[in-house]
């Protein structure tokens, strides 16, 4: 055990792997939040009037709301006035090829391990890289455009496809849904927009990398994905942020709409800066993600691997409106040191014969707290709804905590709801077995943890699954004991 204690110490002393900050000139608004800020953002982005009004209405509603206190997390209050609401890399000129992109920015991406140049040829992944709120470069757009797929930054979509934005914005997550969603609706800076036309199967994984770069900037992303009848899309979101001392707020909104027979798969690997070993710094990740299965036989799958952020609360949810629609949620949430996570899902069954599956795996180590909070609601008219939930927690060390708060609300007598949860530590016998086969303790733990998370990793696209496994190993390095 003393060996593992040493490795634990090594790990906890080690610096955040992605902690660097790049010196790109940015154009930003002064700190503070008021109606002027909202108008200024809207103006800077040259938005149509209806969107400015929409933002202002959200801001009005936001003013009447208070920050929720129910999550099982503890953090100092966020000073919304001490924050920059808009920071965009200064536009020098319109870019047509990668060569014209700021070399420093390219370097940033390279450090992150997403070489844009190679991405085209090698991975077949279209990357819409978002750095501090404005999409700098959208790759593969033309190729996708041939199929009628729209994949662009949110602000671009506002300019070029206002009718789509107007129809769908706020249709899944209303502006007054919750405190942070309202804040986002008022001040959102940019994000991604995906539109898959009828009958089109998107031929590649769409991907965006978020990075919070400018010091003290809140990141308010807004993602909207619309999949028309019979279409399908898989969307990847990866997040890292440089090391900063002050806590940074990230309050994003993600809306998914799936029409008849459409499928949306949304995968997240979140590795934002979790703060140092004493819990100093790190990102506050307060995100509202919701998918609407609007049509019959539509399907939305959320897969998330959460290893970063100092405080996380997010509940990727599915509203199963269409008959025979399917909602799935697969999650691995890892917390170490002083991280806190309160995450889970909401499955709201409204249509007939709807099904949902929840697989949640929580791993807590160090002094961290990991909570699963989930709601399964079967509405009065949701005949033959079926839900299956598993939420397992794994504890490493005796200073951490694992909590589960499942809510099951059933109003229909034909529903089947099953929920099970276990909490345990890594079995001594399993560890012993692997170690007597010659594996080091560290490797043995990794093997067991990977096996434990297998059900979720299997749902991730290949490239992500590999990255997720590595992240998991890094996050848990040496936390055996």
């Amino acid at each position, binding site marked *: 055990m003393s060996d593992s204690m040493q490795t634990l110490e090594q790990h906890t002393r080690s610096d955040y792997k992605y902690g660097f900050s790049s010196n790109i000139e940015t154009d930003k608004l002064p700190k503070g939040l008021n109606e002027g800020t909202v108008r200024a953002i809207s103006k800077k982005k040259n938005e149509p009037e209806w969107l400015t009004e929409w933002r202002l209405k959200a801001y009005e509603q936001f003013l009447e709301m208070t920050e929720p206190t129910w999550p099982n997390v503890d953090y100092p209050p966020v000073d919304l006035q001490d924050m920059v609401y808009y920071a965009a890399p200064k536009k020098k000129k319109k870019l047509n090829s990668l060569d014209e992109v700021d070399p420093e920015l390219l370097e940033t991406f390279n450090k992150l391990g997403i070489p844009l140049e190679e991405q085209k040829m090698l991975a077949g992944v279209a990357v819409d890289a978002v750095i501090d709120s404005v999409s700098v470069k959208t790759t593969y757009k033309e190729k996708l455009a041939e199929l009628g797929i729209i994949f662009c930054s949110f602000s671009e979509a506002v300019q070029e496809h206002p009718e789509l934005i107007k129809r769908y914005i706020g249709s899944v997550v209303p502006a007054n849904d919750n405190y942070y969603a309202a804040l986002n609706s008022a001040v959102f800076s940019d994000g991604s927009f995906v539109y898959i036309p009828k009958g089109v199967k998107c031929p590649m994984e769409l991907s965006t990398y978020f990075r919070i770069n400018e010091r003290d900037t809140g990141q308010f992303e807004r993602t909207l994905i619309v999949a028309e009848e019979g279409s399908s899309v898989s969307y990847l979101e990866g997040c890292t942020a440089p090391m900063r001392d002050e806590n940074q707020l990230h309050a994003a909104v993600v809306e998914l709409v799936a029409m008849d027979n459409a499928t949306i798969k949304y995968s997240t690997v979140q590795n934002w800066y979790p703060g140092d070993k004493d819990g100093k710094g790190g990102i506050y990740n307060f995100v509202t993600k919701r998918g609407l299965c609007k049509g019959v036989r539509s399907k939305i799958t959320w897969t998330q691997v959460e290893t970063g952020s100092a405080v996380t609360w997010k509940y990727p949810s599915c509203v199963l409106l269409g008959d025979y629609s399917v909602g799935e949620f697969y999650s691995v949430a890892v917390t170490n040191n002083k991280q806190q996570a309160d995450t889970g899902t909401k499955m709201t069954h409204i249509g007939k014969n709807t099904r949902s599956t929840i697989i949640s795996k929580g791993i807590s180590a160090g002094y961290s707290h990991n909570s699963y909070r989930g709601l399964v609601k079967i509405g009065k008219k949701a005949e033959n709804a079926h839900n299956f939930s598993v939420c397992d927690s794994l504890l490493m060390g005796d200073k951490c905590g694992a909590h589960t708060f499942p809510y099951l609300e059933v109003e229909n007598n034909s529903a089947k709801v*099953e929920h099970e949860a276990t909490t345990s530590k890594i079995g001594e016998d399993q560890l012993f077995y692997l170690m007597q086969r010659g594996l080091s303790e560290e490797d043995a733990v990794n093997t067991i943890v990977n096996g434990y998370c297998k059900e979720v990793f299997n749902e991730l696209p290949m490239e992500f699954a590999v990255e997720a496994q590595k992240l998991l190993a890094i996050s848990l390095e040496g936390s055996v004991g």
Partner: protein
Amino acid sequence: MSTTVVEDRFAVEKQRFLDLFEKHGAATGAVHPLQEYQQRAIRQAGALSFPTRRDEEWKYTSINRIVQQEYQLGEQVAVSADALSPFIPEGLDAHLIVFVNGVYQPQLSDEKTLPKGMSVLKLEDALDSDQFGTVARGELEKMLTEREDIFLSLNLAFSQHSLFFHTAKNTQAERPVYILHLAAPGGTPIYNSHLNIFVAEESSEFTVIEGQFQLPGTSGVYFNNLANRALVSPNAHVHHYCLQNEGEQGFVINNTDAAHDRDSTFNNYTIDLGGRIVRNNLNTVHLGSNLTTNYYGIYFGNGEQHIDNHTFLDHAVPHCQSNELYKGIVTDKARGVFNGKVLVRQDAQKTNAFQQSSSLVLSNKAQMDSKPQLEIFADDVRCSHGATIGQLDEDSVFYLRSRGMSDAAARAMLQFAFIGEVLGHFPNQAVSTFGAKMIAEKFGA
């Protein structure tokens, strides 16, 4: 419990309780220690407020209906010994203590023949006695300070006929004590408070059965606000049964708080069949290691019943185990709630905690809300919970029907088998059989 409610929604309703106390409790001149506690309790109730559905603990249960009534305290009603027989489990040999409308009935009770080492006293006598005074005061003190619950405060404030149970070291009480609460409501809504304090000294064992029923031929609104406190010493074993089949206009709030020490056992067996709104709070805290807590619960709601079971297990020390099994059925417009919280504190290594809650929702208007909750701060533990909400298996119904049973009979049999499993865990055969009979009668109704 949140106390920082900006605006007290039930301020008027609370004032009615305070007035009721003014009318009865404060009238008597002499100040007995119990009355001092009651005065403190009513002051505390005055400072607290009734929970609303905005309180997480009361998210699924509205107390609106309960507190809106204008209650009076229960009056003495003459009941003959023969009238008791339907409420006494057949073959149960027990010391009987009877309350009607919350008023103690000495002529119907026979707690005089208790075995050596076991004492049952009125709480006020216990407070006066040299032997039990300290421990009784300690329990009341804890009741006032441990939790901030307005129903607990109101319970103590109005607890005129409360009881104090004590088993001395090494006492094994073979015959259980059966506390029978009978309600005889009439025109005005009745409010009853009753408090039991159970103290089991080292290596003693006893069984207590609480029966809550409405006398046939009576009808009306009543509210039973009950509280139990159990202090279980090392190696002592306490078995606590609650058989509840109140009338359809009866409201029940039952708070049971148990604390037990090393090597001991605390078992709670609950059957909830009656009542309009029923809320059970069952809390156990562990003081020593190597002990076992078992909760077994059955509920069946029909009509417009609302049955809410809140259980809480506080694993504060290592090497303890707990088992929890709740099974229930809701049909018609009934609503069932299960909230099972298991807390494993940082030091409570080697804890084994199992929880299972299964329920059947049999009609379109019935509703079931389930919230199993694990909060775990220790790593070397095995904790699991399972919750299911579903229906009868149609294949099983078909099988029974193919054997010649009617649809109704087949369903009744399967429903009975579903919740009957829990009865199998009741060690007292007479109570288990009586429970089965009560359930069968309810199915028949």
